[in-house]
């Protein structure tokens, strides 16, 4: 009796979920199909912008991941993005190896750097952590310029090696970035259901209860930050690959804030559409506002304020974790 009850329940659950999956899944497939076919119609500049957009979408995902699973905000993730981008460039310049090698290397370096930052900061949360990440973003430009021998100083470095020889560079950049973006979205969806993902969500919603189940706050904070930094570095590697250059211009203090803007505009969601919206917002807006560049921070600022107000003012959504303790 009990067994058949169980079977009934899980079947009902699965079919309910798969009904839901159909709608979301179909639209997702449609989006991916459109993107796969876009190079047939799009001109060179749009293709280039989209490739950058995919890479930036990944960077936005890294910030969203930190918000969703860790409940924390970082305005310094540009540090890890730069780490990934420069890793690819330096590996190519010093070792002559292509992104095949430097992509996983960049990801590992990002994880390492994330851990080095997160471990001493494991008792920080909320605002204090945000301030610490701000310091990361501010220290970045001087590190990039100070270690000129490695980083090429103000001029930066070029990234020229092909991933797949023979195929036009523009197409390589486009499809590699798109493929990685789709794979990462799938991986994040899988992560949400994994033991570690559930543990992180619980640690964020009910830290005391999580502790009583063996999930410590330190573990949660260090883990999520390390993962998020690794993803940011991966995004950085693809950014460098897609734009074929790295230079300190791409990594000012505000780059970190812009990643947060992209994440907020995508409502901190981890789905492919949200990532695309966020990535597009921070890639295409400066491109199309190139003449009126000073309006970019204003637009971003307005977006940040408006979305934050709407998402928190309405009691319908819990968008960022509430800190009730004063």
């Amino acid at each position, binding site marked *: 009796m009990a067994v058949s009850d169980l079977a009934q329940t899980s079947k009902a659950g699965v079919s309910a979920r798969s009904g839901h999956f159909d709608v979301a899944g179909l639209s997702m497939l449609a989006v991916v199909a459109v993107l796969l076919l876009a190079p047939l119609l799009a001109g060179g500049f749009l293709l280039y912008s989209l490739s950058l957009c995919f890479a930036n979408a990944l960077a936005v995902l890294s910030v969203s991941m930190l918000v969703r699973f860790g409940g924390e905000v970082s305005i310094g993730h540009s540090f890890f993005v730069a780490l990934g981008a420069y890793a690819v460039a330096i590996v190519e310049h010093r070792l002559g190896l292509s992104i095949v090698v430097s992509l996983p290397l960049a990801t590992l370096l990002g994880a390492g750097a994330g851990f080095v930052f997160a471990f*001493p900061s494991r008792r920080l949360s909320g*605002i204090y952590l945000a301030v610490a990440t701000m310091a990361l973003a501010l220290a970045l430009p001087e590190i990039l310029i100070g270690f000129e021998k490695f980083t090429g100083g103000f001029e930066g470095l070029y990234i020229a090696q092909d991933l797949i020889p023979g195929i036009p560079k523009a197409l390589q950049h486009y499809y590699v970035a798109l493929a990685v973006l789709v794979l990462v979205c799938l991986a994040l969806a899988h992560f949400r259901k994994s033991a570690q993902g559930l543990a992180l969500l619980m640690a964020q919603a009910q830290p005391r209860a999580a502790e009583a189940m063996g999930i410590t706050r330190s573990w949660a904070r260090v883990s999520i930050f390390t993962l998020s930094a690794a993803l940011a570095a991966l995004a950085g590697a693809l950014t460098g690959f897609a734009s074929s250059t790295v230079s300190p211009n791409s990594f000012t203090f505000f780059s970190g804030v812009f990643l947060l803007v992209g994440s907020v505009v995508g409502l901190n969601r981890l789905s492919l559409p949200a990532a695309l919206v966020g990535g597009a917002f921070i890639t295409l807006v400066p491109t199309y506002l190139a003449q009126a560049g000073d309006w970019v921070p204003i637009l971003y600022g307005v977006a940040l304020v408006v979305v934050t107000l709407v998402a928190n003012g309405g009691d319908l959504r819990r968008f*960022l974790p509430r800190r009730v303790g004063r």
Partner: protein
Amino acid sequence: MSVAGFIRDILPLLWSGLISGCLYGVGALGLVMVFKSSRVVNFSHGNLACLGAFVVYGFSSGSLLSLSWGSAVALALGIACTVAVISYVLISPIVFKSDLASTIATLGVGLILQGAVQLIFGADIVNLDLPVPRYSFSLGAIRISSYDLAVLAVTLAIVGGLFVIIERTRLGVAFRAVSTNPFACEVCGLNLRSVHLFSWLAGAVLGLVAALLIVPTTFLSSTTVPSFMLQAFTAAVVGGFSSLPGAAVGGILVGVAMNLFSFYVAPEFMNSFLLGVILLTLNFFPNGLLERAIVGRV
């Protein structure tokens, strides 16, 4: 190196560190006041100060208007206070709901102000000096200039004034009460919003004063502001984000430390040094080096 030589080198460093530290402290005071009363870290603090400084420049140098320095400052104060009020009004719906969301909203405000400065004043790099007659004299190994004295005088006046307001006036008592236990204050019928407004306005004034005093030592541009922000933040962290005297002392410690680092190690890694200071302090002295009581840390 002889001991005398070492002292000859270090005394001026300590002195100039003290002077610049006063300014970081004043900037930090603005941050800490807003944080204490509303639990929000105001990331637009530096941008507002920058805007104010540029306004003073614009109104006094002739690019916008040609007023006296004093009138320009008064006008800039008015504008800064107005913007501070608008920022608070924008954020007020969520101040009581989520500290983190409010802080992100201040980031948005900061971005808007940054854009505004760039729009109005472009990528100008300008000099903005204090209208203080230049003279200097030596005291042993230290060279003391009129600028130094002006900074000290203003800092003492501001800190003294703030002390009087907070310790002696009703508004100050309200501020202290809200900083300790906002819920109890609400229960007693205290208007939290007016206290918040007070601290935000005070923050704007403090930020502008600090900016005006620090700009003569370098130059004013839309990009020097984030650095100043980092220095003020470091001072606030070192002093413990919830301690007003701590912010002032923290500023001086940071100023001196920065000078020593710049002279003895490497001036081009200043921000990285400050990053290290922030991480170390937050990790080992979460309540600031002065270890005052604080809520909100894990």
